[in-house]
């Protein structure tokens, strides 16, 4: 995997460092700006949703209005004008909407092809990955549905799931992230438009990687997707999401909610490569990425593994968490967060140990360059019943340049003596010696930084599914473009 040399090629062939900044010119239907009960009804009407969901959304909206935006994270951003946003945007369907992949608007297929996500099944590498493509507020295509259904796996857009399996949606929606959990999750609960739904039946090992590709395209639009994954007893699934957005001068809001439910002996591996538009070198534009991701290990010996590579967004506020309820359940969090230029990231995890012999592992690698601020914030809480709980956390920061900041704020709360919590954190920089060695052996400064940083992140990157690991390695290099003189 000599990703570094390729990385530099990629960088050089681009005019700017952000490769996915193009805008797709497609006729778009948007909700009127602003957020009222009518907005919620507008979304509902577009999706033909049942009344129980309307009530659920309206309740969330009412709650949201009583809440305040959280201010505890180490991020600074201008006030968001919640009434100045469109809460729904969708490519205008030609006719009655696509019945199959062949009918999807060629402009959209083209857009995804440009992002490296072919939506025509025959073009996808030997059926290793099934893709749900979410464009602004709607899912435009889901591949390999038929093949998955043979195994009983449901992989579809959230909107479709509401109609197909309403009882499952009703049972689990908001059961891990309640409406009032936090300001952004509550907002999402009121206005979420689409997202992915995954159901893996008992004993099934999902035959391929599932992947959702999120794309924000329209201007002045917030994206509020909702993902729900349910892994029944003894099942297994690996799910990956990717995110990009056009290069625009104004900030855009992305407030997603992801809920995972894992029953006895089941496992969900959830990987994210987040590369939303980060804004320019001065901090103009870029996505505000305020995301609530949480999984409940409800079953015995269940497991959730979060892996995230966060390189994009102007501001990131994100703490993928595990509630370890089932005895012997396992939570993992592997994270690489890279901030460059004026980016700010406050990200980490929460591991809540409730069941006996629950185990959690946290490996966080934060890399700060330019004028950026990069914070790891994590909570490990061991509750009184969690006999034999174990946590190991390793948080390393790397600083590139002397104008950035790297911060580590772990919260450790233990109420169980028969448990072990270990936390280690280090901060260092790329040494002049390392840089010189690489250059003496023939690498350019950019290649050298990419190589060294990839080494620093290795423990995390190797947790990504193979197909995406190489991509992520390249992204590491691209994200740090311009960080060394």
């Amino acid at each position, binding site marked *: 995997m000599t990703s570094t040399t390729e990385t530099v090629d990629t960088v050089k062939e681009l005019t700017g460092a952000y490769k996915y900044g193009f805008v797709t010119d497609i006729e778009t239907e948007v909700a009127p700006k602003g957020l009222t009960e009518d907005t919620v009804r507008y979304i509902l009407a577009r999706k033909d949703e049942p009344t129980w969901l309307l009530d659920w959304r309206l309740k969330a909206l009412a709650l949201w209005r009583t809440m305040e935006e959280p201010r505890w994270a180490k991020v600074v951003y201008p006030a968001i004008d919640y009434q100045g946003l469109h809460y729904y945007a969708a490519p205008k369907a030609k006719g009655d909407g696509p019945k199959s992949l062949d009918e999807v608007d060629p402009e959209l297929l083209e857009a995804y092809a440009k992002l490296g996500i072919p939506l025509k099944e025959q073009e996808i590498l030997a059926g290793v990955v099934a893709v749900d493509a979410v464009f602004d507020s709607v899912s435009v295509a889901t591949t390999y549905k038929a093949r998955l259904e043979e195994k009983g796996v449901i992989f579809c857009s959230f909107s479709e799931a509401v109609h197909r399996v309403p009882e499952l949606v009703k049972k689990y929606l908001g059961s891990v992230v309640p409406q009032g959990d936090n300001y952004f999750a509550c907002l999402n609960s009121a206005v979420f438009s689409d997202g992915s739904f995954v159901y893996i039946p008992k004993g099934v090992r999902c035959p391929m990687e599932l992947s959702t590709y999120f794309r924000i395209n329209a201007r002045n639009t917030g994206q509020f997707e909702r993902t729900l994954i349910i892994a029944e007893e003894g099942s297994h699934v690996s799910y990956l999401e990717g995110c990009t957005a056009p290069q625009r001068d104004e900030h855009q809001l992305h407030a997603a909610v992801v809920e995972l439910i894992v029953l006895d002996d089941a496992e969900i591996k959830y990987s994210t490569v987040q590369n939303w538009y980060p804004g320019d070198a001065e901090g103009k534009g870029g996505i505000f990425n305020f995301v609530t991701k949480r999984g409940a290990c409800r079953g015995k010996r269940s497991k959730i593994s979060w892996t995230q590579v966060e390189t994009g967004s102007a501001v990131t506020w994100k703490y993928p968490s595990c509630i370890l309820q089932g005895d012997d359940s396992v939570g993992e969090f592997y994270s690489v967060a890279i901030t460059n230029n004026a980016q700010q990231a406050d990200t980490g995890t929460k591991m809540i140990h409730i069941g006996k012999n629950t185990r959690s592992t946290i490996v966080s690698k934060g890399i700060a360059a330019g004028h950026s601020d990069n914070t790891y914030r994590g909570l490990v809480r061991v509750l009184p019943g969690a006999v034999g709980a174990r946590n190991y956390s390793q948080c390393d920061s790397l600083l590139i340049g002397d104008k950035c900041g790297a911060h580590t704020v772990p*919260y450790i709360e233990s109420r169980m003596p028969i448990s072990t919590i270990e936390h280690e954190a280090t901060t260092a920089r790329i040494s002049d010696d390392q840089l010189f060695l690489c250059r003496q052996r023939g690498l350019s400064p950019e290649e050298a930084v990419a190589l060294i940083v990839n080494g620093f992140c290795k423990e995390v990157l190797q947790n990504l599914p193979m197909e995406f690991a190489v991509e992520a390695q390249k992204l590491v290099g691209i994200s740090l473009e311009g960080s060394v003189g």
Partner: protein
Amino acid sequence: MTHSQPVAPLLENYTAVAAALPGTLNPRIATMRAVAASTYRVQGLPHAKVEAWKYTRLKDLETVGFRRADAGAVLPREIAGAGVEGPVLRIVLVDGRFIAPLSNVFDIPGVSLRSLRVCLDAGDDAVIQALDRDVDFSGAPMAALATAYLDDGAVLRVDAGVAVAPVVEVVAVSTAATQPRIAFPRLLVTVGAGAALTLVETFRGPADDVYAVNAVTDISLGENASLSHYVLQAQGAAATHVSVGRCDMAAGVHYEGFALQLGGKTARHEMRLRMLGVGGCARLNGAYGVRDAAVCDTTTVIEHIAPETTTDQVFKGILDDHGRGIFQGKVHVFRDAQRIVGNQLHKGLLLSRNAEVDCKPELLIYANDVKCSHGATVGEMDPDQLFFLRSRGIDEATARALLMRAFLGEAFDTIQHPAVRVAFHARAETWLSRREGEKA
């Protein structure tokens, strides 16, 4: 989602009380107090939204009607300090008041000891300046409250180049009273360039009375000065204890600190080091023991403002019964403060299923040539070690006692002053043996 108003008790009749405080006519002192009082009024007692006080509520201060303490009468045995053997000079503060007759006479050339009240009455510029330096009350309502009631205390000054041989011990004692009272002991220490001092602060009071202490110690260390600073918090079991030590360090300073907390119902000791000069180095260690339903908070804030400064911190806590231990350690490396080393370790040992440890280390780093680390572990006694000892024929109780002492011993070994090490060790031993006495 309730947004309750801050609760700011202890300011009843403040205007009347403030008018009677020393130095009221001095505009600078009056302003200092007024600013502090209004800051406290706005912030109120610490609550969950104040990040610096995330884990500690001062419940008694919220509910029990404390009154500001007048100086009570003490018995000689009550002014005993930490029990340090050898030459000791003692400064006694009773309910926050400097009591000269109980204190030693400091007849060492280059060392002066004065009452804060006298200094304030006289409008001593140097003292006012030292009290009024850029103290930031954000997230520090208790320090603001203490300054609002700025009254008496001790002012200790060591001139440049003077090495003080005897241990200087400050005993802040609270006396028994029929009503719950709060005292505000205040200590101002200035150590001149190249001077050296060993300072032991002891806090104590009646074993079972409800009382409160809100203490502030301000220390200023001149270039290449050296300070060994030991704190023993041995308050009574029903006491609310809050203390903060703020230390400004010039270039080349050597600071060694150790804080041992064993008392109080709710106790918090905070050390804040500002490393303002190149080459300063600090070792800040400590230990605590919590039992019954007590809460013990140890908080450190290190600001590496100047380059080439180093800090090393090791804290250990033993938690029993329903006890709750808190450790917060913030290390802040400022922009351009290069070549910094900052290491920190906290270990909590839980002896009971009902005990709790909350730990929040925090690294804020804005310079890139920095080696910083922190580590935190919380858990029970190592079952492998326990088994090993038992397999060699040691009974379980003895084995546990042995391991507990080994756990704390590591911390005490860092105390550089031999007599203080012995004295603190003995304190901890008494604390441990009470546990064993009860549970045998």
